[in-house]
């Protein structure tokens, strides 16, 4: 056997575990999902071809499908919030201070708590009758505002999840912290010599340097919003009044509670397309901005 052929054979043998997994659990399911999305498929009986009917039905469904899209889009508010809070915390934790290791551990800790326990915890903390929300609501009432009822009120239920997720920001913060530590110190030294101070250093050195990480985190954040599942499944099951019926939850309900496999697969493929488009757009926008900044200065 020729050396080249043998090398290729060995290469494939080494990647065989992953390649098998890829074929069985990624490639085949993607294609199967695409096929099922064009069929009427329930638990009993074989899939029956219906063309674009599932997609048409979904796109015409304002009560559930579009509601879930709207709810999910609302959660995108977390993306800028987590960029600002994540970088802010990382900047604080990146200073040379005594006890910094302890601070870092404390901020990271909430993201170690399993999602099920996190959901429980916040249901109880934000419980408007007995939780930690009580003193806050008393203060609000005294100031003449109406109390916030969090998960029990359709108007504020989504904010409960925003608070819950920002609490577990440690995972994001650590990535920004690593990025900050990767910024070469000679850049700061040069800027200090040029007379830059405080916020100017952050604006002109730190942020441009960590821009690729921010971009990556924004993409992950947008994709993550469309996959948001465990917390809503546990805490609200989509309620009250479908105000927390998020895309991934409705997809799950279609697949495993209503057993409308065709609908679920159509939603899955739409999700796939949304993910691709979002990734592409963020990529393009931030690349052109980076380019403009390079030319503009």
């Amino acid at each position, binding site marked *: 056997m020729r050396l080249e052929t043998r*090398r*290729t054979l*060995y*290469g*494939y043998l*080494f*990647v065989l*575990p*992953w*390649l098998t*997994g*890829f074929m*069985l*659990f*990624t490639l085949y*399911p993607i294609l*199967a999902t695409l096929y*099922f999305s064009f069929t009427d498929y329930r638990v009993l009986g074989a899939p029956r071809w219906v063309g674009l009917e599932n997609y048409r039905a979904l796109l015409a469904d304002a009560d559930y499908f579009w509601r879930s899209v709207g709810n999910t889009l609302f959660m995108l508010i977390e993306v800028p919030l987590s960029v600002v809070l994540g970088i802010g915390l990382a900047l*604080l*934790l990146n200073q040379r*201070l005594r006890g910094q290791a302890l*601070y870092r*551990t*404390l*901020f990271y*800790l*909430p*993201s*170690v*708590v*399993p999602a*099920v*326990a996190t959901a*429980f*915890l916040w249901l*109880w*903390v934000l419980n408007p*009758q*007995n*939780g930690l929300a009580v003193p806050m609501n008393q203060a609000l009432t005294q100031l003449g505002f109406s109390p916030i009822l969090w998960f029990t009120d359709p108007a504020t239920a989504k904010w409960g999840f925003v608070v819950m997720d920002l*609490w577990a920001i440690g*995972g*994001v913060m*650590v*990535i920004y912290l*690593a990025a900050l530590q990767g910024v070469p110190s000679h850049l700061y030294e040069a800027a200090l010599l040029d007379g830059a101070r405080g916020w100017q250093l952050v604006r002109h050195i730190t942020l441009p340097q960590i821009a690729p*990480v921010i971009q990556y985190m924004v993409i992950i954040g947008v*994709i993550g919003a469309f*996959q948001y599942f465990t917390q809503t*499944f*546990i805490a609200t099951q989509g309620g009250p009044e479908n105000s927390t019926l998020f895309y*991934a939850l409705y997809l*799950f309900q279609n*697949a*495993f509670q209503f057993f409308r*496999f065709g609908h679920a697969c159509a*939603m*899955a493929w739409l999700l*796939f397309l949304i993910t691709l488009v979002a*990734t592409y757009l963020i990529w393009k926008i931030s690349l052109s901005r980076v380019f403009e900044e390079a030319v503009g200065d």
Partner: protein
Amino acid sequence: MARWGRVVAAHAALILLAGVFMLPIAWMVSTSLKPDDALFTERIVWIPPRIAWENYQTALTTFPFWLYLRNTLVIAILTMAGTVLSCLPPAYAFARMRWRGRRFWFWVMLSTLMLPPQVTILPVFLLFRWLGWVDTFLPLIVPAFLGNAFFIFMLRQFFITLPQEVVDAARIDGCSDWLILWRIVAPMSKPAIATVALFAFVWSWTDFMGPLIYLNDASKFTLAVGLQYFLGRHGEQWNLLMAAAVVVTAPLVGVFLLAQRAFVRGITLTGLKG
């Protein structure tokens, strides 16, 4: 003077924020130790009038904690072993072997990282149902033995930092790639392998959707799903619920504190959330 002011301000901000972040955890622990009659009060009570340690006893017996712990451990340990074994050879092939198709498959693997799990979940479920594996641990364990793109990428990133001369020297001595991987590269990569093992373990431990879909019989539940089931049945007994939540969370916090450095390294290596 200005420097001192900044240090004090930074400490003040950090202490204040850390306090806010720790408040819910303190409330969880406090609630878990309250007797039933001290649960619903007008004012916020942090230290209960009587410390109700028995809540933990009750929670651990009404909720079959030890059984769920055993199930979770079986799944998490096998997942961890399978992940390490099945990710090392592909990572080595992508990092250190020259073969036709390497670039193509590496690109394919990276692009699967962005794929939402919902896209594949239903056909995979139907596949396991066809195999008769629903309501067993197999759908949660077997895929771990067939590689994981995140971890292969992570190991590959580590492998390319190893000195090429060591690998070359072994090749000249007549070592095959298989031997180089297990005898030379793997022992040199202990920190990276430990990180992968740790993440595989923790993700398996906290996985919710997998056990939710595949396990029906309450005796087969993992801690995550068992906890959710417990919530459904004891919705108003918040002291018991919080005790159960503390018990499920504590081992993970322990693992985190013990392996903190590996966690941070893993996150920086991959840019992944924990």
